[in-house]
């Protein structure tokens, strides 16, 4: 089989992912490479945690023809696509900035930002597009403040990010967008050298360990990963709750539910629906299947998160189930650096939205909501709501 991308139902991953109970099965990549698809939760964890699998692009094969790996090297500082020890070097310069304690200290500021967006919605009056007024601004404002990126520049970097994630774009278009975004962050880094701020880009400059190219690559990664992901969780999560009113009522009315509800929405929605791809650098056996050196493996996060061996009734959204252990932030050394920030943003934003607008509803027919099936991060392009 080739990698399935067409969903039969908007909140469920493609049915083909579940038509074979084997946790590891053959997969034909877009360039004809005979590799593997991992759909099991335990098998997915095993692959993602194993240093014998590489994430370096030149070793990987594309899942879609449009995602052919561009020739050339990984941008300096872009540690998402590096193996240890290079990855470790860059990540360690940032881990101190994203600790649980530091993220908890941001809660009051995230509450302020959220309340101001809700005020905007009230002023505008229904209907409003929740993506543009709420879901995208909250994480964008937060990551801009943390990094030291001017929020006034958002139109350009949000538009560039959208093109970066559009699956139909050619590898050449992707490379051009990566270049645009890195150049943008590079100019910011130069400005930080002249006018230091109290932000992460300035901190990386001050570390004295990095070139401006490296800081630009790291900043590009943080900026893109810091706003698109949470934005899609907020909008798609709200949509899912609106379609499951009894679950929405629990999140709205019982504050003790929210921490677990966030984990369950992460599990159920699995917005990273395109890969994670790795390449074996030596022979590895995963759950009895021999994966030979050079073979590429695609771990389907949505399938792993709905493995019936790990979660009972996996296709059911149940904000009270023990939902921890999902792979939505990945696993292994590349597990999301910003996950504790994302958790707090969601723990603040969903209840605040439903508290302010207890009668929140869709302002368009369900089928008129434009789904992001064409993007590497799933979600909704827009969500018209009223109250």
């Amino acid at each position: 089989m080739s990698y399935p991308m067409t969903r039969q139902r908007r909140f469920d991953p493609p049915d083909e992912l579940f038509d074979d109970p084997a946790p590891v099965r053959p997969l034909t990549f877009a360039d004809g490479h005979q590799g593997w698809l991992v759909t099991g939760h335990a098998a997915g964890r095993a692959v993602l945690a194993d240093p014998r699998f590489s994430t370096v692009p030149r070793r990987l094969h594309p899942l879609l023809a449009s995602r052919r790996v561009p020739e050339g090297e990984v941008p300096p500082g872009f540690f998402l696509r590096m193996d240890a020890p290079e990855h470790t070097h860059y990540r360690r310069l940032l881990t101190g900035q994203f600790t649980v304690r530091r993220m908890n200290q941001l809660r009051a500021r995230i509450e302020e930002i959220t309340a101001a967006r809700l005020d905007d919605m009230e002023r505008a009056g229904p209907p409003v597009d929740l993506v543009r007024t709420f879901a995208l601004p909250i994480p964008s404002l937060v990551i801009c403040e943390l990094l030291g990126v001017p929020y006034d520049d958002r139109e350009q970097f949000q538009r560039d990010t959208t093109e970066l994630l559009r699956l139909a774009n050619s590898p050449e278009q992707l490379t051009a967008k990566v270049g645009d975004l890195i150049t943008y962050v590079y100019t910011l880094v130069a400005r930080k050298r002249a006018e230091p701020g109290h932000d992460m880009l300035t901190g990386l400059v001050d570390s004295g360990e990095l070139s401006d190219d490296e800081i630009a690559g790291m900043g590009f990664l943080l900026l893109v990963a810091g706003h698109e992901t949470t934005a899609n969780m907020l909008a798609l999560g709200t949509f899912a709750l609106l379609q499951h009113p009894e679950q929405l009522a629990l999140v709205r009315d019982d504050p003790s539910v929210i921490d677990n509800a966030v984990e369950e929405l992460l599990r159920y929605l699995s917005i990273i629906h395109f890969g994670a791809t790795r390449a074996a650098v030596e022979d590895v056996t995963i759950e009895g299947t021999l994966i030979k050196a050079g073979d590429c493996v695609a771990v389907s996060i949505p399938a792993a998160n709905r493995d019936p061996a790990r979660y009972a009734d996996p296709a059911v959204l149940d904000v009270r189930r023990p939902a921890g252990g999902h792979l939505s932030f990945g696993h292994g050394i590349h597990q999301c650096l910003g996950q504790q920030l994302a958790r707090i943003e969601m723990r603040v934003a969903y209840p605040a939205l439903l508290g302010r607008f207890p009668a929140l509803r869709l302002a368009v027919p369900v089928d008129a909501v434009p789904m992001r099936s064409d993007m590497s991060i799933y979600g909704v392009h827009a969500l018209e709501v009223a109250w």
Partner: protein
Amino acid sequence: MVKVKADRDVCIGAGMCVLTAPLVFDQDEEEGLVVLTSAEVPPEAEEAVSRALTLCPSGAITRVDP
């Protein structure tokens, strides 16, 4: 009493242990890597520690067999 150890060379600072079992695990301010607030696990934290061991993405924390 259950004991745990932490390997800061392996840790990637994801914070899952601190989120899950804050009685036993912390992160230092500088690097954000795991530190143990107590090598011995108090009985009331045993279940949380067991979950944290499973959730740790890098395998930096392990149970020490008596």
